[in-house]
């Protein structure tokens, strides 16, 4: 892929400055690019820094958090130093975002129509009537029946799945180059989850968007993602094309995540899980951040944190187990 990336994140650090002089390094030196039309998955357990990565790209980090360092380029344009007003022209227009909780993500006191048309009026400078027509079309596109009536309804009158469809309609309304979906189906019924993911994949094709799909469900990855980034403790620990990553899983953490999936071939009982929990972002261990939970931990791992190395073409791993592999060639 030699096109220009739609999103280029370079050495991004987003820290939270907590009351007691602690610093939560929620995102700690992350770099990645997303190319046009691509679906990239960002996976990791809860608390590994996925949402903060996404919100940093949107420049929606609230106090006490702050982007400390790094560059974020949208279509080659640096957005870190943009002022708040300039940033409002990019959000919703060039990058859009969908959130985890459809039940609370829509404003309870405004109609669906009002909330979709306002984004069209803001970015596309549409007239009221044009925006209304376009909004009805969008609702139909995302598979909402009775679109005209839904325009006049309020969020509380819709189911969670419907609301997430409305969120998708809003997100694609200005045909952004990049859509970020932060666990878009986690809060939904299992039966609805696949529908919403399929809809997003369909919209991605239709509007030629790139998709950053955040999930803690590795099962979703194989079906929808071209590329996977595995995140742990605010850092990327493994990064490769989906097929490569699933076939030649390297990092013990990624292995652990994959093993925790119910597997058809094996005993249904053997639901391997990684022991322990993600360490809090203000208290990472000195060495490798996964060392305390890693079944292959070595003395070295407790001393220093390994770098993210390209051990095979386009396969990056942050682990001392593969330290020499990249250099052998």
């Amino acid at each position, binding site marked *: 892929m030699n096109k220009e990336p739609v999103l280029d994140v370079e050495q991004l650090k987003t820290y939270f400055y907590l009351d007691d002089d602690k610093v939560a390094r929620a995102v700690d030196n992350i770099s990645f690019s997303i190319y046009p039309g691509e679906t990239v998955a960002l996976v990791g357990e809860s608390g590994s820094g996925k949402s903060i990565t996404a919100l940093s790209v*949107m420049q*929606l980090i*609230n106090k006490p958090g702050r982007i400390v360092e790094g560059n974020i380029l949208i279509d080659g344009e640096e957005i870190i130093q943009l002022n*708040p*007003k300039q*940033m*409002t*022209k*990019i*959000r*919703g*227009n060039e990058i*859009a*975002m969908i*959130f985890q*909780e459809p039940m*609370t*993500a*829509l*404003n*309870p*006191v*405004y*109609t669906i129509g009002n909330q979709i048309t*306002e*984004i069209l009026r*803001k*970015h596309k400078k549409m007239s009221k009537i044009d925006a209304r027509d376009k909004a009805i079309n969008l609702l139909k596109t995302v598979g909402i029946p009775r679109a005209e009536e839904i325009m006049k309804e*309020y969020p*509380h*009158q819709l189911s969670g799945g419907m609301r997430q469809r409305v*969120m998708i309609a*809003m997100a694609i309304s200005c045909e952004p180059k990049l859509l970020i979906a932060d666990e878009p189906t986690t809060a939904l019924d299992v039966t609805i989850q696949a529908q919403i993911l399929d809809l997003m994949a369909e919209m991605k094709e239709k509007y030629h968007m790139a998709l950053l799909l955040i999930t803690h469900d590795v099962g979703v990855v194989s079906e929808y993602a071209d590329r996977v980034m595995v995140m742990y403790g605010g850092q990327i620990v493994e990064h490769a094309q989906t097929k490569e990553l699933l076939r030649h899983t390297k990092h013990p953490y990624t292995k652990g995540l994959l093993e925790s999936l119910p597997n058809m071939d094996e005993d249904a009982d053997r639901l391997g899980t990684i022991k322990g929990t993600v360490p809090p972002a203000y208290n990472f261990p000195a060495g490798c951040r996964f060392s305390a939970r890693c079944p292959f931990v070595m003395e070295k791992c407790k001393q220093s944190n390994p770098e993210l190395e390209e051990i095979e073409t386009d396969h990056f791993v942050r682990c001392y187990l593969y330290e020499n592999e990249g250099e052998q060639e």
Partner: protein
Amino acid sequence: MYKYIIRRILVFIPMLFILTIMVFGLAQLAPGDALTGQSLADPNVDPEVYEQQREALGLNDPIPVQYGRWISSVAQGDLGNSLVFNGRSVAELIESRFANTLYLGFFSLCITILVSIPIGIYSAKRPYSLLDYGATGFGFLGLAIPNFFFGLIAIYILSIKLGWFPAQGTMSAPGVTGFEAFIDRIHHMILPGITLGLAGTATYMRYMRSEVLDVLGSDYIRTARAKGMSDSSVLYKHTLRNALIPIITLMGFEIGVLLGGAVITEQVFQYPGLGTLFLSSVTNRDYPVVMAIAMILGILILIGNLLADIFYSIIDPRIRYD
């Protein structure tokens, strides 16, 4: 929504009925009647005379009969006659007082809303700024200082020492008319209005601040910002309406609080409103007047709550279908 409002109005009627029973009952429970005071004041008059008067006024009839007589005349708009002011009609006594109290309450409510809501919003927009700290300090003072004390200090400094505001009454010269009279009235209402609204202003400022902060942290505000909405749209469109929902409910109760506060504030400023009349009527045991004022205050409180509910159902779409 109309169904909801109609239902709400229907509930109003039995509440009104209960109110009449309470008012009448309280008046009955209170010791003595209008003639007790007079008999104590003038022991030379034969008690038999008062007994005859009681009989004539119907004060010796069984209580349900008295209630029936009272309620049926009240329903016809006849509030009876004062027992003290040479039998002048209660309606006549109350009329101008009632208007004065309404003006004062309305004026005070306007000050409260116009001051507390913008300051609350600003404090939330810039938490821990100088103005936020100032507002917090004022809030504590406003709640800690009793109305009458603040009123006395205001009179001492602003009217006696500085002479900026009149210390009492509703108008200076009876001769003025038109716009001049209006300004004169406002001038007289400023000190009592601020005094009356002080605690409310402090309370609503704090509520508004915490509501706005709460809403600003909510998911749908993050959505609005993710859509690229401007700061002013986020604050004034998406946040404000949600933040006002609980405030409006409280405002309904505020009418009752204001009227209660008016009794004392009016006394401090010698403002000829319902409050001053109420106090003097209680002292004189002029029960027809006391009952009429209690009825009016009760009805105003009920109307306040009704209005709050109606506004609430307009501003929050979720309520209409429950």
